[in-house]
């Protein structure tokens, strides 16, 4: 394992630990306001300062980490599960099933980035549940496309044909022989997908379409800080650093996993 994936793993593990125990160790509450101290800068008592309503920013960042990680984990789990199932069915059966699924994927891919999620949350109403729902609805397509391509190759492999020749049922061939060959690529995509989901949640919350006040979310904290760029830039700086570092961590980890699991890259590396 090279340095970057280790750094990535360290960032992710530290964030998970901080999200789990951090809010319990902090002497403040994420939503309790100390209005006389509003916008106070960093100090020994409040290392990241206080926000526009006098809430401790460090405590809110630690609580916000929970939201980011929960959204990431749920969106990635749902998207990957649905994507693997749909993609493997499309790739394995081909024909009209593949055509139908591919057209649905084409339509969903015609909405760039989180546009469809913005639209869905706009009509369903802003909430954490709707953010997760909207991001999962668009998230599965990437996994399905990846898995479909892998399954198209895998179904022609000798051990899959052997399983079929030995009389294994379609379900058994698919679940026990074909799908497992796609899992390394899915793992890489899921790790990188965590970074994508975290940024997407923060973007929606920044736009006021995600997690609603007073629940702390990194994107919403950045949005709150916009009005105080002049007098209290710390409101903007610290949540932004938190997002960038965690996203970088998942990217490092995903890149490292890809290098470790990709036979082509392994060969290139051992050659060179």
């Amino acid at each position: 394992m090279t340095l970057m994936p280790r750094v990535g793993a360290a960032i992710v593990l530290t964030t998970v630990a901080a999200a789990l125990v951090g809010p319990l160790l902090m002497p403040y509450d994420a939503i309790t306001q100390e209005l006389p101290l509003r916008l106070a800068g960093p100090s020994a008592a409040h290392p990241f300062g206080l926000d526009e309503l006098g809430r401790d920013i460090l405590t809110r960042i630690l609580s916000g980490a929970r939201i980011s990680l929960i959204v990431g984990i749920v969106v990635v789990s749902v998207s990957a599960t649905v994507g693997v199932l749909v993609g493997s069915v499309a790739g394995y059966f081909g024909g009209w099933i593949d055509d139908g699924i591919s057209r649905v994927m084409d339509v969903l891919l015609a909405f760039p980035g989180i546009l469809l999620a913005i639209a869905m949350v706009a009509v369903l109403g802003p909430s954490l549940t709707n953010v997760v729902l909207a991001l999962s609805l668009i998230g599965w397509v990437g996994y399905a496309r990846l898995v479909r391509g892998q399954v198209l190759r895998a179904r022609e492999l000798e051990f899959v044909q052997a399983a079929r020749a030995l009389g294994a049922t379609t379900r058994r061939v698919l679940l026990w022989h074909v799908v497992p060959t796609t899992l390394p690529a899915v793992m890489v995509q899921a790790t990188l997908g965590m970074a994508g989901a975290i940024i997407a949640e923060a973007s929606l919350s920044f736009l006021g379409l995600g997690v609603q006040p007073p629940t702390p979310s990194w994107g919403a904290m950045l949005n709150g800080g916009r009005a105080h760029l002049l007098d209290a830039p710390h409101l903007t700086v610290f949540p932004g650093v938190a997002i960038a570092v965690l996203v970088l961590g998942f990217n490092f980890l995903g890149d490292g996993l890809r290098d470790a699991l990709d036979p082509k890259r392994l060969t290139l590396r051992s050659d060179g």
Partner: protein
Amino acid sequence: MLPFLIRRLLLTIPVLLGVATLVFALIHLVPGDPAQAMLGDGASPQDIEQLRERLGLNRPLSAQYVSFMAGLARGDLGVSMRSDQPVTREIFRRIPATAELAFAAMAVAILFAVPLGIAAAVWRDTAVDHGAMTLALAGIAMPNFWLGPLLAIVFAVELGWLPVSGRGSPASLVLPAITLGAGLAAILARMTRASLLDELRELYVLAAAARGASRARVVLRHAFRNSLIPIVTILGLQFGSLLTGAVITETIFAWPGIGRLLIQSISFRDYPLVQGCILLIAVTYVAMNVLTDLAYGLLDPRIRLE
């Protein structure tokens, strides 16, 4: 080339129909009565009924769908709830601002990323390479809704060099364009480096050097020209993320484009306008993908034959 063009355009039709259907369905995803949601809790039953009548929500779903598609074919997307103006007029008024921002962001990305990627590839595994790629990674990890305010703090608030927000002088375009272009620049720099490194390994590069061509000529005239295909493709495909990024960038800098209009119409529950904005962005994205494919087909004849 013509059969390739026709095939590609035909494949786009079902996608556009699907996009239009999904956009039509949006208003029906509103929990409860869409008319009630648009007018708020204080609306009288008469007002709600009037709005249902006006939007055609009291007609059967199939009739609503047919009239939505027919309106679309005529370029009629309905009327904005807030301004009472046709949605198409509202949208067309905002297109120049978004187009200006998107192309400026693309220019920023190309101007930063291509030299950075070339330098990283030429001086591979040196401090230049590491520095350039660290910068690119920072660009990828840094969300534009953070970069924008940071740039505003430094260049508008502290230094006072550029305006904080709005659209007027050319100076007001600088910060939004950098904010929107940074992510694309990061991806483009990595792609330029990777693509150029692949070309620099080719025998024709060695042959050009052996014939006495200077290092700069070998890199820029021979290798870089051939590495352009994936770079152009990435530029085309990433145009979509520019459009979505514009929603956030325009909101940060109060830039009067489609993205800001979308967010404003969401906050006013102006669903016909929301539908219009979403449709325009999706159709533009599909069109850009088709153009990218066609450009790819022009640049590489093997694609046309597949």
